[in-house]
């Protein structure tokens, strides 16, 4: 019937948009909740952290004179007010995380789909390359909309409390500013997906763009460059919105323009290139070297080396930044009631504020390291789901040997991350003449690797029992731990609930000595879970995606 055909046509014409939107929305919902919880937590805990005017003024003076912190997470404006504090406290973090979320989501749903051959199937339908790309970008926009909506909703709920008192419009504008980088980098990721010949390279290209913009913004905020330089970076544009501290809606114009032009360029380029090719065609000849291809151990090093080195380098760099800023940050933050309470709960009663601060920050690095460990289990599962593993396990190679070797690489990788984190932190601290020694920082780094080892053990067990569920469960466990770590002690004193978070059991080394009992429990569980996982893996069917 004509009516039904019309409906069918419309549905067919928007299939790609709906499919992409569904997948982007899942991730947008998770990160939107996290963004919203972070904002709400800062708003709701403000009066607990700064109960007196004097404490607010003292904090504002410390932060205002801290050029290192300003360069890293952006300038502080009116931090002696609740609006200024909330805007400063998590805004810089949300801009960075939002940008990374945007670029990874876009390349995952565009270039990875093309790499896997699924894009080809969609293009065989009643669409064109250009139209399909436009639809996919519309789907990404829906994912961003959910990210914004959840951030805005939770900020508005917290803002409505009498102790906070943000107008709804201010909360909505804050969410817009906090997720502006996500929108811009969704577009950057979409463009990189047209320019680069694989998802990995698209990620690299988009990350390079992010790094350049971040550096420009960093230099602009360091106080050594003219203020107009901030307009040279889209990350600076987001800062110029001044949410909760005298909103500047006009500064949205370059953000909207940049997002629109970049997304438009992605659509045009998608129409101009052949499927499976890239605008920046690779002319580099393939390497003929067979180094590291003597067996499965070498293969995993070859496949994972750049990912591993990126994690190691990234964690070392972050630890270095924490080390450099430890003294000045401690002066401003260790007095904050929530952090002091958190440190106390973790067993630290700091005599040295810098050590306390670095110990507190290393708990967050431990969460990142746990993500790196979960990504290892995810990569293992991908080897099996993609059918690559069949090529090895149908030859003279035992399943258990393969998994043990693969896990061996992951353990070495996690420990290397721990060593790099400790070393980076020590270099940073030593550069600012803080009195925390190399041995203490190395302990801190390896301590941060303990939850990652726990995740590897749990991941192996899940991989052996239910491979399809392993990665989702692991990421949920880490996210839960992270949330409990951030807000758990503010909202409950129920230690049973707090103990469900693996990060809770870590001591904030170097502010405390190592919690040997907790380390023994966590690593002991990891060993037993690994052995059980190996046994289960040996008994189960290999399963495709």
């Amino acid at each position, binding site marked *: 019937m004509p009516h039904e055909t019309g409906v069918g046509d419309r549905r067919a014409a928007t299939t790609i948009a709906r499919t992409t939107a569904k997948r982007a929305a899942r991730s947008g919902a998770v990160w939107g909740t996290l963004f919203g919880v972070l904002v709400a937590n800062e708003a709701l805990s403000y009066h607990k952290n700064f109960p007196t005017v004097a404490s607010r003024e003292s904090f504002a003076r410390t932060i205002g004179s801290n050029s290192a912190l300003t360069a890293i997470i952006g300038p502080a404006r009116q931090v002696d007010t609740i609006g200024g504090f909330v805007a400063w406290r998590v805004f810089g973090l949300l801009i960075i995380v939002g940008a990374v979320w945007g670029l990874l989501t876009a390349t995952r749903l565009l270039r990875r789909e093309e790499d896997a051959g699924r894009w080809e199937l969609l293009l065989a339908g009643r669409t064109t390359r250009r139209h399909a790309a436009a639809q996919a970008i519309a789907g990404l926009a829906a994912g961003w909309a959910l990210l914004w909506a959840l951030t805005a909703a939770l900020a508005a709920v917290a803002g409505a409390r009498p102790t906070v008192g943000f107008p709804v419009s201010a909360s909505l504008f804050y969410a817009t500013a906090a997720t502006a980088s996500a929108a811009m980098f969704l577009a950057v990721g979409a463009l990189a997906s047209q320019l680069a010949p694989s998802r990995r390279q698209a990620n690299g290209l988009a990350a390079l763009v992010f790094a350049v913009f971040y550096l420009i913004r960093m230099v602009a905020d360091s106080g050594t460059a003219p203020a107009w330089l901030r307009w040279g970076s889209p990350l600076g544009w987001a800062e110029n919105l001044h949410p909760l501290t005298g909103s500047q809606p006009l500064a949205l114009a370059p953000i909207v323009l940049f997002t629109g032009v970049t997304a438009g360029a992605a659509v045009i380029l998608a129409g101009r290139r052949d499927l499976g090719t890239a605008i920046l065609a690779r002319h580099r000849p393939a390497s*003929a070297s*067979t180094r590291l*291809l003597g067996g499965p151990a070498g293969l995993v090093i070859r*496949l994972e080396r750049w990912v591993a080195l990126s994690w190691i380098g990234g964690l070392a760099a972050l630890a270095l930044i924490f080390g450099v800023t430890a003294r000045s940050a401690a002066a401003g933050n260790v007095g904050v009631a929530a952090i002091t309470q958190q440190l106390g709960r973790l067993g630290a009663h700091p005599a040295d504020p810098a050590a306390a601060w670095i110990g507190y920050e290393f708990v967050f690095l431990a969460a990142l390291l746990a993500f790196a460990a979960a990504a290892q289990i995810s990569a293992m599962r991908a080897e099996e789901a993609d*059918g690559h593993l069949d090529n*090895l396990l149908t*030859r*003279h*190679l035992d399943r258990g040997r393969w998994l043990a070797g693969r896990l061996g690489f992951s353990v070495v990788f996690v420990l290397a991350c721990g060593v790099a984190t400790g070393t980076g932190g020590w270099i940073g601290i030593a550069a600012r003449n803080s009195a925390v020694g190399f041995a203490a920082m190395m302990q801190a780094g390896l301590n941060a690797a303990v939850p990652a080892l726990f995740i590897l053990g749990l991941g192996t067990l899940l991989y052996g029992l239910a491979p399809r569920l392993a990665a989702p469960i692991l990421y949920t466990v880490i996210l839960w731990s992270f949330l409990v770590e951030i807000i758990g002690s503010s909202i409950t004193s129920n230690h049973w609930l707090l103990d469900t978070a693996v990060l809770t059991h870590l001591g904030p080394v170097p502010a405390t000595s190592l919690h040997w009992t907790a380390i023994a429990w966590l690593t002991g569980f990891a060993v037993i879970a690994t052995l059980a996982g190996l046994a289960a893996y040996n008994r189960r069917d*290999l399963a495709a995606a």
Partner: protein
Amino acid sequence: MVAAIRTEGLAKSFGATAALRPLDLEVGEGEVLGYLGPNGAGKTTTIRCLLGLIRASAGRADIFGVDAQARPAQAHRRLAYVPGEANLWPGLTGRQTLHLLGRVQGKIDLAYRDDLIERFQLDPSKRVRAYSKGNRQKVLLIAALSSRADLLILDEPTTGLDPLMEETFRQCVAEARQRGQAVFLSSHILSEVEALSDRVAILRAGELVEVGTLAEMRHLSALSIDATFDTTPPDLSRVPGVTAVDVEGNRVRCQVAGSVEPLLGVLAASGVHQLLSREPSLEELFLAHYGREPAAGVEASHAA
């Protein structure tokens, strides 16, 4: 002599669905067994059980006397496998992939590998991601054949190959057979199976319905008869053993199973002018087993 493959009551279920019903099968050394069945019949499930990639629900599978379920790595020592889908590491070149697979296999005839690269016209310097489907399949065929393994397990091995390369593949399998290698060939291409196989096994809905040489199968199957008469043909539908009678003017086509004597008697008495009889092709044998019955969709969803 130890059989290359021996299964006893080998079965696999996915939940309540029986993908493979108890299977008793044997492939001798130097024998080529064609393994036929429509989509979802259980061919890939059988192969994945033989390789120990999935756990059998019941029964046993031995490769040269080694229990493939209990000790898969040892069973793999004497076999090479080519899957129907060439899932290779996209960042490696063809040569790097062949090197890696050869090292994991543990045994490789380098001169033969170079010869195969030439015969299959593969450019090994390209990355796998730049290969067509057929070229990726060639990489796996070369890796398996150059191992000179005593048993080749091939699951739809010519997927994506052009007719010239398919001919090269047939020559290679024939050479392997001459060298005494056993081949377990699962294929949809009936002409390929007919040309290469010593015996054929036919699977339906997870159950082995026929196994034997083509000659044995033909002997047990109906003959195709095509008779032309001077006048109106007689009614052959009541003759014992005769089925599928199709009358077109003075011409009759039918199938006859068992003794042809009753049919010949009727034809001779009815003034037959021309008589042609033909043994069924493998395609006809295959279709006779499946007829118009729908195939079970088990393998496609679980193990394809």
